[in-house]
């Protein structure tokens, strides 16, 4: 048998099979990513042709990071603070709430499948359609204000609507994001809890372990790696948020809900924007997301040998 010929035929078949995927990847994936990185160092005002791009070094980054463009820097600072608030809220609200609901669901004996289906609906339906519903609920005469009025909490009513007032707009947007993002974390925790070996609890009972010891020794080791994933996932959602803001507030009122991705989109496709600055902003945000994810990994990630103690 001719092994070299067979090996060559196998390699050829391999290349033919990956050719369509790789071709698409090179044109749509790799090329645009490299193009985007390069563009971050060029100035290309919106509406100009690509060959009018001018190399400006790090000026794009200076524009929005260190006051090179005073107005844009202000917008960017406001946007990144809002992104970080959303990220903070996602972590401190979604993680405990998802865990609590997952524990409750795991304790239930009847209707578990139905509950699980209902609990997933916010994530499945999160789309332009649902963001308009939330706009309706937050409306000056919407359900939330009507409910507050009907139980006598008139002083709590947001007169311009919950997304129409400076101090309530961001919390209201966060509620919408949490509502849509929570199911993913919930499902992961639920799957984790189901995977805990119940024999371990029985064995612990025989050994006389108390509830706290069982939680720390049996349940937490399973939930810890899930918590890392959940944390990174939610950070990602918070720092890359766009759809909710675009549909509900477009960053308003007066920038109260402005986020970086909306700013990127406006810089890229609106008049007076600069496509180079848009790319520089996008990659800055990417770096921030990446660093925060690494920090979460370091803080909660499994350290080798820790279990042996």
């Amino acid at each position, binding site marked *: 048998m001719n092994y070299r010929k067979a*090996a060559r035929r*196998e*390699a050829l*078949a*391999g*290349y033919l*099979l*990956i050719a*369509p*995927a790789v071709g*698409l*990847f090179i*044109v*749509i*994936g790799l*090329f*645009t*990513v490299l*193009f*985007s990185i390069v*563009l971050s160092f060029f100035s290309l005002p919106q509406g100009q042709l690509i060959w009018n791009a001018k190399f400006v070094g790090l000026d794009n980054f200076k524009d929005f990071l260190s006051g090179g463009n005073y107005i844009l820097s202000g917008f960017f600072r406001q946007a990144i603070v809002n992104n970080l608030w959303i990220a903070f809220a996602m972590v401190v609200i979604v993680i405990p709430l998802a865990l609590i609901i997952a524990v*409750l669901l795991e*304790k239930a004996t009847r209707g578990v499948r139905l509950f699980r289906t209902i*609990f*997933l*609906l916010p994530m*499945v*339906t*999160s*789309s*332009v*359609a*649902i963001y*308009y*519903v*939330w706009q*309706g609920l937050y*409306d000056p*005469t919407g359900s939330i204000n*009507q409910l507050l009025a009907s139980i006598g909490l008139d002083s709590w009513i947001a007169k311009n609507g919950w997304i129409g007032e400076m101090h309530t707009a961001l919390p209201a947007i966060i509620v919408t994001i949490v*509502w849509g993002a929570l199911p*993913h974390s919930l*499902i992961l925790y639920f*799957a984790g809890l189901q995977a805990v070996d119940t024999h371990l609890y029985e064995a612990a009972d025989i050994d006389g372990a108390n509830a706290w010891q069982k939680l720390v020794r049996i349940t937490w080791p399973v939930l810890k790696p899930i918590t890392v994933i*959940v944390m990174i*996932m939610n950070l*990602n959602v918070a720092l*890359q948020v*766009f*759809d909710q803001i675009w549909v509900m507030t477009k960053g308003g009122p007066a920038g109260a809900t402005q986020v970086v*991705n909306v700013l990127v*989109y406006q810089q890229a*496709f609106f008049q007076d924007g600069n496509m180079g600055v*848009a*790319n520089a902003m*996008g*990659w800055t*945000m*990417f770096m921030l997301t*990446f660093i925060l994810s690494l920090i979460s990994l370091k803080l909660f990630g499994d350290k080798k040998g820790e279990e042996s103690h």
Partner: protein
Amino acid sequence: MTKAKTGALYGLLLLWSFLCLYPLLWMVGASLKAPMDVMSTFSLFPQGKWHWETYAEVWNRLNFFSYFWNSVIVTLSTLIGINVLYSMAAFAFAKLRFPGNNALFVLFLGMMFVPGITVMVPLYLTENYLGILNTYIGLILPSINGAAPMAIFLFRNYFRSIPHELFESAKMEGAGIMRTLLQIYLPLSVPILATLTAINFLGSWNSLILPMVILSDQSLFTLPIGVMLLDSGVFRQWNVLMAGALISIVPILLCFGFLQKYYIKGLSAGAVKA
């Protein structure tokens, strides 16, 4: 558990169910009310006449028929593209030896870290240059490519979990590589096909930024943009907006209903790759 504890448990689960369902019920109720009643009555459903005719208006006069079919065409093509392209590529990565196999596989996986909005500008410029801006193809190709990391990862792992003897015996019988993939491996991979279909159906159907950037011709618009167009008047007609919104999520609910098991699998798989 004591009775009181059981009661509290189900009470809390029902409360959370209510919070999950309320916005959806509000959507249905608002779409059936008279325009003036949506914001002025607290009751979830119309107290007088149920205005079904709003749906006909949205579907016919407000072009939802066309948006709906655009969404169907784009989503189905995306799903077919994902399953065909990446089952082939993953089969090569999993089963065939060729120089660069691992490096290319890792490069594909690395793409999942790329932030979507950032590459919109070069994507727009590239598509403009290729002449596929403002076409179905211009929308479908990036959607397919975006699913590559997860699809290749899932298919490759699954193909590797199938005993290698199967591959060897197919070879002995004289089956070519394509036939081995199509007649032996793909029929065994239905769970992966279903998982990718469920996850990417929702992703593609709900996608907003990509069609916003790529499409400018209203006759090509997909449903999410169609819903946003309903809001473009000076005076917002909540009943019309909610009828359009409901039309846009019915296919999602159907897909979720049929493929829930696989969707949940996909959620876990998607998390592991993150």
